[in-house]
């Protein structure tokens, strides 16, 4: 794989200073604690006034994981601090669909293996096409296996790249990551949430019966992450019974999160919470 050849090509100074100049657009992979962290771009050129996709690529050692925007019961989300040329502006990470991690009474949400955290990068309107720029970032992340280690990495990305050989592979990371990221609820679908005392009842109307579903809460303090989620197929979708967090003492107005129906079918949900259902209809 490209990443492997890159790893060995990094000179010692790059490790000492945390990054190397003049690499490929997709380069700057470097070894941190149990992970290789690099910056990559979807395209090897930038257009004035447009949004370009760049991202932090984590290549995690087997058995180790990092966290989603809501880490769940323990852990902490990765944080990116950018150093950008004037006028460039990094937006929020577009978090790919996480997986459930852990066993028993402590459940976390995060990623294993190779994960790309894409970030929309606003290119200034006065950017001159083709002008070389260097995008750099300090990345702080908690990486855990049986134990957790707070780690730091610094990575840089030159655009246009000196050597564009990895461009196709990087583009593929973005494509597969977007495919595995939550999508807005399709037109015609409907999500409803009611507060049933100890549970949120989430009904998703997709038009067809769905037998599998899992809910990932976006907020950290609303849902009991470890509690089993009740899943009931309905004629036009699926119903999920999600236990509230014991620490949630007040009613919430909106329940936000991601519903995963099957791999690649994850959807963003933000539904007003209606009061407890009283009586039977």
């Amino acid at each position, binding site marked *: 794989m490209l990443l492997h050849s890159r790893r060995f090509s990094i000179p010692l100074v790059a490790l000492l200073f945390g990054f190397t100049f003049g690499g490929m657009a997709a380069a700057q992979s470097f070894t941190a604690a149990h992970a290789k962290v690099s910056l990559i771009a979807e395209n090897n050129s930038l257009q004035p006034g447009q949004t370009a996709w760049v991202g932090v690529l984590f290549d995690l050692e087997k058995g180790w*994981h990092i966290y989603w925007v809501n880490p769940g*019961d*323990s*852990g*902490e989300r990765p944080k990116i601090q950018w150093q950008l040329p004037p006028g460039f502006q990094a937006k929020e990470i577009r978090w790919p669909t996480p997986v*459930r*991690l*852990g*066993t*028993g*009474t*402590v*459940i*976390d949400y995060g990623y294993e293996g190779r994960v790309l955290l894409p970030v929309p990068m606003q290119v200034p309107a006065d950017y001159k096409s083709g002008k070389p720029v260097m995008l750099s970032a300090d990345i702080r992340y*908690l990486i*855990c*296996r*049986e*134990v*957790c*280690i*707070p780690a730091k990495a610094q990575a840089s990305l030159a655009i246009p790249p000196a050597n564009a050989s990895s461009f196709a592979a990087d583009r593929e990371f973005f494509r597969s990551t977007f495919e595995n990221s939550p999508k807005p609820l399709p037109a015609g679908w409907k999500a409803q949430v009611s507060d049933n005392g100890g549970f949120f009842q989430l009904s998703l109307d997709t038009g067809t019966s769905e037998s599998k579903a*899992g809910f990932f809460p976006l907020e*950290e*303090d609303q849902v009991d992450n*470890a*509690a*089993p*989620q009740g899943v009931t197929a309905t004629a036009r979708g699926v119903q999920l019974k999600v*236990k509230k*967090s*014991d*620490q*949630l*003492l007040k009613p919430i107005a909106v329940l936000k999160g991601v519903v995963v129906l099957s791999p690649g079918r994850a959807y963003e949900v933000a539904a007003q919470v209606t009061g407890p259902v009283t009586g039977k209809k």
Partner: protein
Amino acid sequence: MKRSATSCMIVAAAVFCALPMARAARVGERAPDFSVADTNGKVEKLSDYAGKFVVLEWSNRGCPYTQKHYNSGNMQSLQREWTQKGIIWLTVISSAPGKQGYVTAADENSWLKQINAAPTAVLLDPTGTLGHLYDAKTTPQIFVISPQGTLVYDGAIDDKPTTDRADVGRAKNYVSQALAEATAGKAVSTPTSRPYGCSVKYPGSWF
């Protein structure tokens, strides 16, 4: 999901898992009694402290979030401040044998001296029984129990869920706030928060 149901059987050493989704302690409700040996061999019972405020602090000295509060001296000064005011502070270690943070009584006692810690006692809970009874998820996680035996606080030590020591000084400490309010006879204004940190290293947990 399915995974947590079965894992409950794996950790069946804790009797609490026999109950479906064990009813853990909840704020506003009675804090469940327990009986656990401390590092001096004394059996600590919550009911023995009826009439006093009791703090339960889950700890794992290998966890970087716990280290933030001990390396900065924050935890020790909280322990000292509140035990001097007559509050019972019980540190709880629920790490299973072989997992991060597991300690023997002798080892822990010399460590406490070394770091100048000042809890009333340190409870050793290698089976995770007490941890599951309170559904402690992280280290550090803190519970505050009123003299009447009601749970009045459950959550994080403060509002900065990081491993950065510099955040200690910038944080709003929920435990100090809860204790200050509760000991003054006031309602606790932030009775719950999301506990942050490392997962408690229970038996059978894989991280």
